[in-house]
């Protein structure tokens, strides 16, 4: 299996009452809460931590795109990716991803990913996303009912542009280009494509038809994700799709320490900051037209494995540290305990690409660096046997080879 280093690039100095006073941490919170100088320091922190992870055996450094929010100040993941492409050696760089429907023309995304692939020596994973409603519908103004069609049109343009040997004309509904001929082309003949989703059946069908990697990227952990991840695999099996576990990416918050008590002491406040400083207004999360009729029905009827009360308490930072762990929001404790819990998670949910969220909220850099060190040296090596006999076409060959060369043969297939 593979490990992808990730941090939700939170603003780290939110006042304690922020989560209770803003209507939503998305779209409309006053930007004056964030001092741009502090944001700059936070960026440097995240970059240092990812550079460290590159030297510890992670298979990729993963970046996401969000807009107008205190919880991920990464409106352009490609900007941070370009720094990593030039300053790291081994790990892939996973863009997870570019919100295709937001770019006009979307050929810009094809160009930037090709630039990054060239700059990194062929280490790019091209995640492509619909974007949350807060990103795509509210911050960027795309009519929700058009989002999927715009996304897929852009996807067709971009994937064709990467491979076309001659300039071509593209007469789409939303994008019209007489001469499509981006320079440079990517190094990789087949850039791995991931499409994270939130459980829509339509997305599953697209991902399976194209044999892409699916991703379920929540911060709610195993217990609440189980019906969706298992639903994906049941659907994939039923429709004859590829059951390779490396086609599933999943996010997990990791809190590793020398002892379990130490983990609670070091991470508890940051975990609660992470969850409670992120109120999302319901009207922003569920605009009409964003979710298809079939998927609304699926969501309404899907089994709930976590009670509404537990979910609410989790979002308010009112669970105890070990309750967060028990429900799967976090996996915490000694490297031995973390290894065992991760093994259960990835074998039970058939996950080949684990996105380890190593930093949460306002966690101090030194604690995160220790988290990286413990997980990288004492957990990752022990979990390399998981799914080791499964082919992985969803991470770049170059990063597979380099990670294996430096961190041992079990590091790749």
């Amino acid at each position, binding site marked *: 299996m593979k490990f992808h280093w990730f941090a939700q690039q939170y603003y780290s100095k939110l006042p304690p009452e922020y989560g209770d006073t803003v209507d939503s941490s998305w779209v409309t919170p006053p930007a004056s809460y964030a001092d741009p100088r502090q944001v700059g320091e936070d960026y440097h922190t995240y970059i240092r931590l990812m550079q460290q992870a590159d030297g510890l055996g992670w298979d990729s450094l993963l970046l996401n795109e969000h807009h107008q929010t205190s919880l991920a100040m990464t409106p352009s993941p490609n900007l941070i990716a370009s720094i990593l492409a030039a300053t790291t050696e081994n790990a892939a760089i996973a863009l997870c991803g570019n919100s295709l429907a937001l770019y006009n023309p979307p050929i810009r995304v094809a160009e930037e990913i090709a630039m990054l692939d060239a700059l990194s020596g062929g280490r790019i994973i091209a995640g492509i996303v619909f974007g949350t409603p807060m990103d795509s*519908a*509210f911050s960027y*103004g*795309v*009519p*929700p*009912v*058009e989002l999927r069609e715009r996304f897929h049109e852009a996807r067709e343009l971009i994937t064709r542009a990467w491979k076309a040997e001659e300039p071509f004309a593209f007469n789409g*509904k939303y994008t019209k280009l007489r001469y499509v001929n981006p320079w440079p082309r990517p190094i990789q003949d087949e850039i791995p494509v991931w499409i994270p989703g939130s459980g829509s059946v339509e997305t599953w069908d697209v991902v399976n038809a194209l044999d892409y990697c699916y991703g379920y990227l929540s911060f709610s952990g195993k217990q609440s994700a189980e019906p969706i991840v298992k639903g994906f695999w049941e659907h994939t099996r039923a429709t004859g799709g590829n059951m390779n576990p490396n086609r599933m990416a999943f996010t997990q918050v990791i809190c590793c320490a020398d002892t379990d008590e130490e983990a609670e002491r070091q991470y508890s406040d940051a975990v609660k900051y992470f969850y409670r400083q992120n109120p999302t*207004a319901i*009207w922003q999360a569920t*605009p*009409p*037209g*964003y*979710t298809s*009729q079939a998927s*609304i*029905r699926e969501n*309404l*009827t899907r089994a709930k494995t976590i009670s509404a009360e537990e979910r609410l308490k989790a979002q308010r930072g009112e669970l105890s540290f070990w309750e967060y762990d028990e429900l799967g929001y976090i996996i915490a404790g000694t490297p031995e305990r973390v290894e065992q819990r991760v093994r259960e998670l990835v074998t039970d949910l058939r996950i080949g690409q684990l996105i380890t969220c190593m930093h949460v909220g306002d966690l101090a850099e030194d604690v995160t660096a220790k988290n990286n060190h413990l997980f990288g040296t004492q957990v990752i090596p022990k979990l390399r046997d998981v799914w080791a006999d499964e082919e992985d076409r969803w991470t770049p060959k170059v990063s597979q080879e380099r990670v294996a060369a430096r961190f041992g043969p079990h590091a790749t297939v």
Partner: protein
Amino acid sequence: MTTLEIPNIGTFDVELWEEGSGAPLLYLHGYERHPGGAGFLKRLAADHRVLAPEQPGYGNSTGFEHFTDVHDVALFYRELVESWGLESVDVVGHSLGGMFAAELAAIAPRLVRRLVLVNAYGLWLDDEPSLDPFGPADQVKAAKWHAGPPDVEPTNFVPDPDDPHAPILFSARNLGSATKFMWPIAERGLRRRLPLVDAPTLVVHGTSDGLLPVSYAEEFVRLIPDARLHRIEAAGHYPMVEQEDEFVSAVSTFLAG
């Protein structure tokens, strides 16, 4: 249900509420839903043949995927009216239906005899930004009504005892379709076409509408060559519901003129 086939474009199966006889009146409903056989429609049907189609993409009406923009909607209504063998109709459009009605009047001037726009969308005023109709539900609900929401808002929704999720799906489908024309701002260039409207026009506006201030109605009147304003006091986005008598009287008088 009525079916319209537009060659090389597609099929539209459209729910149609029809009642009355006399001069034909096309009623285009607002962004939330078709009102069903609401009181004001029945009263207009006393001396008109009221034809109230449900917009494709709403309720059971299909064909939404054939629309790329608001012009397709206007041309769809042109075809629909012509398919009924009518040479001209009076058109009453409410809310989002007002945007479509005005587009139709601009694009098919000989088809639209008289035009009534009721708390119509389609314009934007920088100096007076209107409330986001897709904002917080309680805020939008409060903004729509002068005297608070009625017990039952007019609707053509038919509950299904076997499907507890039907109301959620009905609302999501309707409003999702509305986003095509109203998201993020309910303005698709109508300002440039209103000066081409030939039909005598009555702009009706519930003055307490928290979604669309009365200045929007005044702007319609300013831009349409032959238009007059009828303000309805003590009414919000649904003056035909909150002040049914005055609404029916104003519209009937105008259409009879």
